[in-house]
């Protein structure tokens, strides 16, 4: 069991992908070929040189077009450099196959489904072609007259990526063919045509479901399609018992197309009543339960009551019953999200603008945005919308948390903002929803089961319009039912803001969020390709009728399908991970700087200058691993008061068993309840009685509420680090005099998110990750996360080592040794601010930055360039400098050569890291 995050850039791995072999090489015995899964490729079309491609295809994937000798240009490089290879269009993706190491813009993340140079067809937003005469033309799904002589193909992706290919070297006509194929397959009109259907049906028949147990989450994410999942949800909550029930009136989706098959309603409402009532609501969506706080206030969501309906008493009755679910009978607060949140069209417009400003054609264009960036950001309004959502969520949280009553979210259709806000509220209010599992289940329940129309909102399906022009980016219709609008992206951005503000309290990382966003464009999973559950059911039924065996769909939460284990590790926020271990050793007092901001003491008050001592009370609770039986007993383990100061902060409390005589204390083996005695117990401590009285009042109360949380956490830890979990104790840091203590480990806190635009950050990691020149090498958030991961690993390792040594000492037997988990040495080669995306940007490898700086030094450019690149071997020989030169066809590379050149790539990148550093932009101004 290794908790090690492998932050290694899999540069070598990427370079070794078999797709870099050309046909000549793959004909021979090729050891690397075996690496790739032997895909099941049915030779439906014998169009392509199958030997090159078939090993790379997924089950059910078929090639539908190809072009040879295509040049794939480097991103944002004004088409100056590129690599030639085979461009293949399948029913799933556009694939670029080459035997050459990719020039740059490597995506380091190891995705089992698509390679770094590939793009799924559902990711394609717009297609542009350029003719020989230089005319650029945008293609529409309806475009028919695509003629020969296509020089260049430019694809704008939904994830803000731009891919450019040139056909100038390929045989006439191949360009046209593949463009037609792409156009034909990129805009499906029906979800049953989605690749997911092909994939899952083929996969189900080919692979006997042998799941590797490497999924990052130990347990299976509840999909909420079975009663069990819902029961688990409402039974565990004391506050809900008897007041809410699950109803299956819509199990066949006959009553409502846009409601889940199962949902939760007040127990007092009969099925018969609900069946009637359902039609009185817009979109046939009843108020359904989302969350109940321990204080018995609940959160519900629904659509608007039908305006034309005359049966007002239905609505009244439902509200009454909802009110009755709260024993205190507090009034329901209605939140009309139509008024509080931006409209779908506004969001779509904003997203479109955002996209435009994040997809610069080249570096100069990116620079041009320079002086205007902030006002651009303001006119885009994206962050204002994010701020608005957070604000609404916070209002709800405040209302529920302070026990003012139940909140009912209302929206015209009840499938967009209600999902977003209800999720946010739950994340902010409920610590269990901040874990990856918890969040996944929440998204599954509120968005997928809650029937957010993903297909429509994300524009996955092309809906033919009466008007012949298809404009994918502007909302062709204002009607909310068919409107495209990336509400889900707003939601993810909100989660990102929560992450940046409260990074110790959430388990997910930015990478998890972008993986979710990318998942919506990966039609392998059944998660994001339907508008609602009924559509999913019907499509699957149809499919099942055609086949004898039941097909098994794959949900996005099966991360194994997509990422190998080491990539999945990147989902976990190291700070959150550490949290479980941080109290193994008592913490230090707050550093002196802690108070100074607040009171200005440091500057002005002589008295407080040396006031580094901060009295601190800590209460230790023993491990909760053995669940609730021992809880009451363990509550009273030990109290420790330590008056620690900056200098004496190393006093370990809570954990120092090997201190002088205290070793006689029997050490409880893991299966029992482990009681740890503190060093402070043996010490005469003057402040103790005071501390006791002070801490018990606050902490015991907190402890009650913490129970569930702690147990939940322990469970997780158990799955990951069973030995270390023993040591998990919950140490609420009782308040210091001025409350300005480190603490912040009170997981039960309702998160205090700041919603003002000032506090929101632009999510560069998501929106700018393909803009290579905006990345910082060795800088940005990613290296910091990586560093934090290292610290977390170190702690885990040390903790388990202690555990191990203790066990040895306790038993007095040194032979029973299971050596502590060994952690392999991390060799971080290369971490940029967009890690694990866009790892290498050697854009300045042959473009001297200096040449851009001073006009007068241009003559020296040649010299300085050679001197700069001198240490690195000349490896650019196989890249086309496309100034009309004939293509240079190198001899097929042997695997050894590939390895060698990939080594050079790494060498180059390292050299660059030291000499070139990060992006270094726009020095031209003002010179």
């Amino acid at each position, binding site marked *: 069991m290794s908790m090690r995050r492998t932050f290694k850039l899999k540069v070598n791995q990427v370079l070794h992908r078999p797709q870099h072999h050309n046909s000549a090489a793959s004909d021979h015995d090729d050891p690397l070929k075996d690496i790739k899964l032997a895909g099941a490729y049915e030779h439906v079309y014998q169009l392509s040189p199958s030997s090159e491609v078939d090993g790379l295809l997924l089950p059910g994937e078929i090639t539908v077009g190809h072009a040879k000798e295509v040049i794939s240009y480097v991103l944002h490089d004004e088409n100056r450099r590129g690599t030639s290879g085979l461009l293949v269009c399948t029913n799933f993706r556009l694939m670029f196959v080459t035997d050459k190491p990719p020039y740059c813009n490597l995506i380091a993340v190891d995705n089992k489904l698509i390679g770094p140079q590939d793009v799924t067809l559902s990711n394609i937003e717009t297609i542009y072609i350029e003719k020989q005469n230089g005319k650029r033309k945008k293609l529409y799904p309806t475009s028919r007259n695509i003629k020969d002589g296509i020089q260049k193909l430019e694809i704008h992706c939904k994830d803000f990526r731009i891919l450019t290919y040139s056909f100038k070297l390929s045989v006439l006509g191949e360009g046209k063919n593949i463009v037609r194929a792409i156009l034909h397959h990129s805009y499906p009109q029906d979800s049953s045509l989605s690749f997911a259907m092909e994939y899952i049906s083929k996969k189900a028949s080919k692979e006997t479901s042998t799941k590797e147990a490497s999924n990052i989450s130990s347990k299976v994410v509840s999909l909420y399609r079975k009663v069990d999942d819902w029961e688990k949800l409402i039974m565990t909550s004391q506050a809900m018992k008897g007041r809410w029930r699950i109803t299956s009136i819509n199990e066949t989706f006959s009553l409502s197309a846009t409601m889940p098959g199962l949902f939760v309603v007040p127990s007092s409402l009969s099925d018969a009543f609900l069946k009637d009532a359902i039609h009185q609501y817009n979109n046939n969506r009843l108020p359904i339960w989302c969350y109940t706080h321990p204080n018995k206030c609940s959160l519900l969501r629904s659509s608007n009551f039908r305006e034309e309906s005359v049966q007002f008493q239905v609505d009244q009755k439902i509200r009454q019953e909802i009110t009755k679910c709260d024993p205190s009978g507090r009034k329901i607060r209605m939140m009309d999200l139509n008024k509080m949140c931006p409209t779908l069209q506004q969001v779509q417009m904003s997203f479109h603008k955002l996209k435009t400003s994040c997809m610069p054609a080249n570096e100069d264009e*990116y620079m041009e*945005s320079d002086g205007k*960036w*902030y*006002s651009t950001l*303001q006119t885009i*309004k994206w*962050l204002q919308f994010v701020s608005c959502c957070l604000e609404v969520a916070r209002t709800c949280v405040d209302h529920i948390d302070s026990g003012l009553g139940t909140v009912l979210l209302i929206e015209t259709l009840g499938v967009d903002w209600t999902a977003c806000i209800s999720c946010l509220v739950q994340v902010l209010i409920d610590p269990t929803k901040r874990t990856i599992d918890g969040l996944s289940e929440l998204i599954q329940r509120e968005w997928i089961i809650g029937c957010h129309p993903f297909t429509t909102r994300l524009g996955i399906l092309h809906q033919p319009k009466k008007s012949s022009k298809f404009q994918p980016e502007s909302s062709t219709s204002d009607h909310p039912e068919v409107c495209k609008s990336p509400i889900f992206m707003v939601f993810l951005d909100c989660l990102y803001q929560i992450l940046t*503000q409260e*990074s110790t309290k959430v388990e997910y990382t930015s990478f998890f969020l972008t993986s979710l966003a990318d998942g919506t464009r990966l039609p392998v999973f059944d998660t994001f390709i339907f508008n609602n559950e009924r559509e999913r059911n019907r499509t699957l039924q149809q499919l099942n009728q055609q086949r004898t065996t039941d097909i098994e769909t794959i949900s996005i939460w099966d991360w194994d399908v997509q990422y190998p284990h080491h990539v999945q590790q990147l989902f976990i926020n190291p700070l959150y991970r550490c949290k479980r*271990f941080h109290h193994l*050793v*008592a*913490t*230090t007092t707050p550093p*002196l700087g802690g108070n100074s*901001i*607040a*009171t*200005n*003491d440091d*500057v*002005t*008050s*002589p008295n*407080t200058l040396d006031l580094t001592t901060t009295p601190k009370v800590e209460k230790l609770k023993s491990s909760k691993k053995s669940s609730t039986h021992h809880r009451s007993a363990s509550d009273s383990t030990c109290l420790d008061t330590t008056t620690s100061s*900056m200098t004496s902060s*190393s006093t370990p409390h809570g*954990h*120092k068993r*090997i201190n002088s005589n205290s070793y006689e204390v029997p050490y409880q083996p893991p299966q029992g309840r482990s009681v740890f005695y503190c060093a402070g117990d043996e010490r005469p401590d003057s402040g103790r009685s005071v501390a006791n009285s002070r801490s018990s009042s606050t902490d015991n109360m907190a402890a009650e509420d913490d129970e569930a949380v702690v147990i939940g956490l322990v469970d997780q830890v158990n799955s990951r680090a069973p030995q270390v979990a023993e040591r998990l104790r919950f140490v609420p840091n009782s308040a210091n005099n*001025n*409350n300005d203590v480190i603490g*912040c*480990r009170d997981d039960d806190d309702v998160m*205090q998110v700041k919603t003002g635009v*000032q506090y929101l950050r632009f999510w560069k990691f998501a929106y700018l990750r393909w803009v290579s020149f*905006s990345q910082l090498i*060795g*800088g940005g958030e990613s290296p*910091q996360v990586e560093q934090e991961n290292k610290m*977390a690993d170190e702690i885990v390792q*040390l903790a388990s080592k*202690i555990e191990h*040594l203790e066990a040895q*000492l306790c038993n007095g037997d040194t032979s029973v040794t299971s050596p502590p988990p060994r952690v392999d040495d991390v060799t971080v080669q290369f971490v940029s601010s967009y890690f694990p995306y866009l790892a290498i940007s050697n854009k300045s490898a042959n473009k001297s*930055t200096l040449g851009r700086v*001073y006009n007068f030094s241009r003559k020296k450019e040649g010299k*300085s360039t050679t001197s700069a690149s001198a240490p690195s071997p000349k490896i650019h020989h196989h890249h086309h400098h496309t100034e009309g030169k004939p293509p240079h066809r190198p001899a097929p590379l042997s695997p050894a050569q590939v390895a060698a050149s990939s080594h050079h790539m790494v060498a180059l990148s390292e050299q660059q*890291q030291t*000499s070139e*550093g*990060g*992006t*270094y*932009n*726009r*020095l031209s*101004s003002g*010179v």
Partner: protein
Amino acid sequence: MEFSEFIKTPKVEEAFLEGSCISKMIGSACLTGHHLILYSHSGDNAEHWILHKNVDAIDRRFGNDKCQITLKCKDFETYCLTVLSQEDATNIANSIEVLSSLDNINLQYPFFYKATNSLSESNLGSIEEDFLMISNVSDQWRISEVNNNFQICPTYPQRIIVPKSISDQMIFKSSEFRNLGRFPILSYCHHNGRVVMRCSQPQIGTNNRRCKEDEKLINVVLGSHHRGYIMDTRTQQIALQARSKGGGTETEFNYPQWKKIHHNLSRPSALYDSICKLVEVSRDKGCAVDKWRSRLESSNWLHHVKEVLTASCLVSQCLDKEGASVLIHCADGFDSTLQITSLTQIILNPECRTLRGFLNLVEKEWILYGHPFRERCARSVYSVGKASRDEGPTFLLFLDCVHQLQHQYPLSFEFDGSLLCQIARHTYASQFGTFLCNNELERFTSRVRSKTTSLWSHLLSDDVFPSYLNPVYQPRSDTIWPSVAPQSLMLWGELFTPFVDPSAVTRRCLRSNKLYLHELRSTINELSKEVSQLEEQEEKLKT
């Protein structure tokens, strides 16, 4: 003179205090020679000490039943004191007004402040240490006493490092040719032997004066083959216009080995206007959501940040990539020049990214080489109109640039953002003497160094410096190239953005991450200790 002359009402028993960074409290207000002290009457006995020097402007609002005095401080915070008696209020306001603008340097608080525990000398900015470092790279330099008793340049220290082959006489000539006597002097020697030098503008004037010694002085640095760059931080036009006032800029004709770069950086007064707008925006809690960013942009502050960073990158590139030496000057050579020289060193020299190295850099570049702190920091953003042309947050802009670098390379700095904030606050009002005067001569005359405590000693003392350490520091030996794209530049939240809710919870969350990482670091230390203890135990058990 006694302070008590100015204090008519030394104490008010019933006062109500609220502020942008503190929670509301009721207590008594007490006026001393240097502080306004507020004691809380509630159980927690909180105290707030506001240095008079920190007060930038006072607003009085006197009603019938209560009188409000708003103290607007130079660190952008505001405090609002409410007292019942109008007479008391007037007296307090008047006293603070007078006491906050005392000119006599000997009455400043640092001369009265005694550190409770004796702090050891920080020994920063030591020329011997510097010289040792340079000697490792090049033997072309020597320590000169030519500026003994500040006879040729009051804004340089007494002992300086000059090229070996240049006699003191030549330096004397050169200093006569340069504005304020600030002749070209070594700032930084890169590991490849190339150097950064700084000076003030040459006094070419209308009759095209030239100075052979000055030319010789800077040419000798280049050696025989190399070329160098002269960076003038004014536009070409402004630089040429300066001739009419006796200044000017080097001509290609007289300095053939040097290439001129003009990179326009704003004068302190322009920065002052900018920061006033910035603080107005960032402290405006009622600002409309959809106006905020464009108002921020129109303050132009981030534009200044960008320009300074760009210029520093440019210089760093010249040194590191081109292998050329650079001479930097503006008009006086102690504003934007110092920004560039110090940022260049942070970019190029990993040593300057350590805590001690950074403080050393500030001492060396800013304090010893004469950034006029007294003039630049006399007033802050709230006294618009009263400020003279000399005021300007040049140093603050430099700190902001460091913050940007820190933000972009969170692992590369040994210290963290709160250190920068702390230094920023101390430049305006402090119990330490570090930022008191304009230059070394003034400090020498007032005996600042012997009579006051140094901020550096405080920051480097054993119980203080750990709190400023960056828990994820990973020393790296190479240069850090900053991105100057607006997407990469951030508003310095810790200093500029106010807390919406001044309650402790919010503040805690702002800082939690860093503190939390500190905890982790100490956890690691503790655990390793324990491991070794356990291992010892085990050894014993075995034997």
